[in-house]
């Protein structure tokens, strides 16, 4: 009997297979996504938040595939993976629902939905695996669907080049990551286990701990590998183009969910297994994340196309999550995880709405869109406003709660009357990023939806097929925004155990 987490991972794959063999594409995909959302919520409900420390993963299942070295198809959740799992099922449902109807897809509609489902399955598998090997392997499941989707259904003349860029970038990034993970396996797993829980225990046991020099170079490999996946400055250049040119559901899934894998890996693997390495490279990470927030923030302001701007902004916001990761501690990590959720939902919402705009007006260039569209499509305008506010981080949305926690986290280790450390200076500089994102988001909103109307087209306002996913995302954002405890309670036992922070 498969466990609930196994069903969660394999249901999208089965649905994709069914579509391949002729099941109605949209119906099957949405059905699978709804069932998955249900399973995800039930799993969250059955997660025991009151366990005192020690308990590492819950709802575990494991099928041993190889005895020596021990390799198992093992799933389990702790607070962090649970939150990311919820993010995935929510965004998947929204992305599949926001996909165009079968008749509107030029080319094979089957492939379109199959790709989205496979990307979702890959993300779920990566977040839920408690085995280092499958954590990596599942993430790569998205590689080919992304490549095919951007090349076949993408927007714009450059879509083929974009597809190549993202594939080569991510391919090389994951190879570097793989080298780092194998080094981890050889040094910490001592060649006999891939189990993440066991490896963390060994990494923190003073007898089996690995020397600082080794930690340092492995951490660097992981940082570059995960950094490429999460578009850390200066490895970010694949992201904005890819998100801009990809079909809407792919942008939603990639920017919203899949990209979080890099951060997830850093928090889950690099942090606890290589504490000395993390310490050593902390300043480098701080410099790079400032690059994300400030340099890329300014680049975002200069964008002339809405989709590129959203793509850039999603890259920029990764800097805050990094800040939370570097700050560490209960508050910093909680903030980082919460921001991953909030950012994932809000960016998916922005891409969905941008997709609706593109479908109506054919282009997303600010100049061509003109202004005053709020009068033509008031509901779209309203929702876009919500999404923009959420992305900036206004109170009431999950992003606000998360960013505040991250900034507090950065100041938490500070002693009274001590001079500011580099971490705190970085946090202070990053605060300006909030201003930058307010500038570009509000400017875009004003340019597109306010002012005099210039276009002569008279499109319909949002259909229900567009409204449902948008509302789903907004409700989740506001729910968490007003009541962050709904997610934070899951993090608590994990934070106290070894999985996240270490002893």
């Amino acid at each position, binding site marked *: 009997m498969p466990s609930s987490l196994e069903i969660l991972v394999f249901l999208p794959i089965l649905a994709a297979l069914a579509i391949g063999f002729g099941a109605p594409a949209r119906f099957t995909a949405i059905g699978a996504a709804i069932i998955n959302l249900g399973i995800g919520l039930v799993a969250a409900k059955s997660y025991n938040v009151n366990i005192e420390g020690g308990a590492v993963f819950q709802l575990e299942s494991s099928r041993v*595939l190889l005895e020596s070295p021990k390799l198992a198809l093992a799933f389990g959740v702790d607070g962090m993976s649970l939150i990311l799992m919820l993010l995935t099922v929510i965004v998947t449902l929204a992305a599949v629902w926001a996909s165009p109807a079968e008749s509107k897809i030029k080319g094979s509609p089957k492939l379109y939905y199959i790709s989205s489902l496979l990307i979702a399955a890959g993300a779920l598998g990566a977040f839920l695996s408690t085995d280092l090997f499958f954590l990596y*392997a*599942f993430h790569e499941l998205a590689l080919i669907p992304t490549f095919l989707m951007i090349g076949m259904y993408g927007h714009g003349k450059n879509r083929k080049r974009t597809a190549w860029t993202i594939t080569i970038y991510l*391919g*090389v990034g994951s190879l570097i990551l*793989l080298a780092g993970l194998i080094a981890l*396996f050889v040094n910490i797993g001592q060649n006999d286990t891939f189990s993440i829980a066991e490896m963390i225990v060994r990494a923190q046991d003073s007898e089996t701990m690995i020397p600082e020099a080794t930690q340092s170079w492995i951490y660097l490999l992981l940082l570059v590998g995960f950094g490429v996946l999460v578009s850390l400055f200066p490895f970010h250049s694949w992201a904005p183009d890819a998100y801009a040119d990809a079909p809407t559901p792919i942008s939603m899934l990639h920017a919203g969910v899949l990209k979080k894998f890099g951060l997830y890996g850093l928090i889950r693997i690099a942090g606890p297994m290589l504490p000395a390495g993390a310490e050593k490279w902390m300043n480098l990470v701080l410099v790079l994340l400032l690059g994300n927030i400030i340099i890329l923030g300014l680049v975002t302001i200069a964008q002339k196309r809405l989709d590129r701007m959203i793509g850039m902004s999603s890259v920029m916001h990764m800097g805050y999550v990094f800040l939370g990761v570097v700050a560490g501690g209960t508050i910093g990590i909680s903030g980082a995880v919460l921001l991953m959720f909030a950012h994932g939902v809000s960016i998916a919402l922005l891409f969905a709405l941008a997709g609706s705009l593109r479908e109506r007006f054919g282009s997303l260039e600010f100049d061509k869109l003109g202004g005053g569209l709020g009068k033509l499509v008031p509901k779209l305008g309203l929702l876009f406003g919500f999404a923009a506010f959420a992305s900036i981080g206004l109170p009431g949305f999950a992003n606000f709660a998360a960013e505040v926690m991250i900034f507090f986290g950065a100041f938490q280790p500070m002693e009274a009357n001590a001079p500011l450390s580099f971490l705190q200076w970085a946090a202070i500089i990053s605060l300006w990023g909030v201003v930058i994102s307010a500038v570009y988001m509000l400017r875009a909103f004003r340019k597109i939806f306010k002012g005099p109307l210039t276009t002569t087209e008279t499109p319909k306002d949002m259909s229900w097929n567009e409204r449902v996913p948008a509302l789903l995302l907004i409700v989740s954002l506001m729910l968490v925004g007003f009541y962050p405890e709904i997610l934070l309670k899951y993090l608590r036992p994990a934070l106290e155990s070894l999985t996240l922070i270490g002893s």
Partner: protein
Amino acid sequence: MPVYYLEIIVVVLGLVMLMADAFVKLEDKRNIAWFAVLVLSVVFLLLFKVSWPESTEGSPFWKFYDAEKGSRGFSLFFKGIAVLTTIIVLIMSAEFRGVLLKYTAKPEDGAHPQSGLSEFFTLPVFACAGLMWMASANNLASIFVSLEAVTITFYILVAYMRRNVGSLEAGVKYLILGALSTGFLVYGFTWLFGVTGTMDLAGIKEQLALDSVNVTAALFAFALIIVALGFKVGAAPFQNWIPDVYQGAPTPITAFLSVASKAAGFIVLLRISGCFFGSGDLSEKVGAVFVVLAILTLLFGNLAALPQTNFKRLLAYSSIAHAGFLLMALASPITLVADGKEPPLLDTSIGVIAFYLGAYLLMTLLAFLVMTAVRNQQEDDSLEGYAGLAKRSPFLAFSLLVSMASLAGVPLTAGFFGKFFVFKLAIQNGACGWLIAAGVIGAAAGFYYYFKVIASMFWNAPAEGNDGPIPVSMPAKVVMVLLIIAIFAVGIVPNLILGLIK
């Protein structure tokens, strides 16, 4: 049943096929191929049932045929690779007959319309017997004879389409370079015999481990042998015959060459280099040679594949690239466990190489099956000829997608585990950083040229003239589906292959 009966059955099968062609009137000569497929499938199942002698003392036969406990599993595994490849190649050949007959039979001269077909089915069976023997050969003489049995058969098969310029040219090139490598091999064997005074690999290993051994002469012998075997497996800098021969040979034979011949080359390489890894002084130098070969092969195979536009040629370079990964496994020094226990399979070069070859068989044969089906419809082997394959035949496109993904090493496919184990072995044994870097560069380049095929199939519209649907015969379809399932199954449960090596 004694294990050597298998080779006997296969040889007898070949003879029966020749007789059948001469004395039985057949409407459709493909029946000969189906018969062979049937018998070989039985042989494949019999691999699980064979028995080994209790003692090999004093029997002259077992001086030529390996019966050592430690290597029995590998012998059987490589025999299995040979048989399975032959089965699939025969099915491919039956599919390929239309193209083949165009360049062999000349009905207007009064020849039988299917003349030459049955020999095309028979020769791979003889090659298979040679390959199976090679998997067990443990004596320089038997290695030489089995290797030549295979090579000479391949000379004929490569040049088989004698009215096709490409095939003939490929045959001539393969002939000259194959014979050249034979010359090196024999001369190397001679010196190895001169240095050690014995033909037995076990004896050679013993002698080479002695302090009294003449290291210079032993290294000279090794150099000659490595040149010869480098030719066979396609290691740079001895690889330059591969692209031309692969491109010119009939497609099923290209598949046969790239899988079975490579596997056989590697088992001989493993066995012979195993002799040299016995002593410290020699093994260090021999290891260094392998590191250099591996780096060159990885870089050459992968980088030269990047600009290729002919699909068959691309696969030729890819086969060089994979030889590079296999050499990388060979170049990572073999771990020796202190307490004398057998090391786990995946910590040894031979275990990793066996797994890699098993995975390589699945994905390469799948690619060639698709290529055969496409070749039936069009002359064009170039990548443009595969444009829009997703529209012409979604099934073939999906098959090729799986095969390319696996060759590129996308996780959850068999090919990924192959590369993964190679890298794991290299990192775990502290292989030199340049080797690992070359491996990473090679794998990254692989993403590009394999994905190029995928892009051509899915992104582009079919080219003018090459846009009709592509029929696939039932047996080929069944084999393809089985291969696809196997690729994913092994990609999740590697034990499916590892369990066979016992």
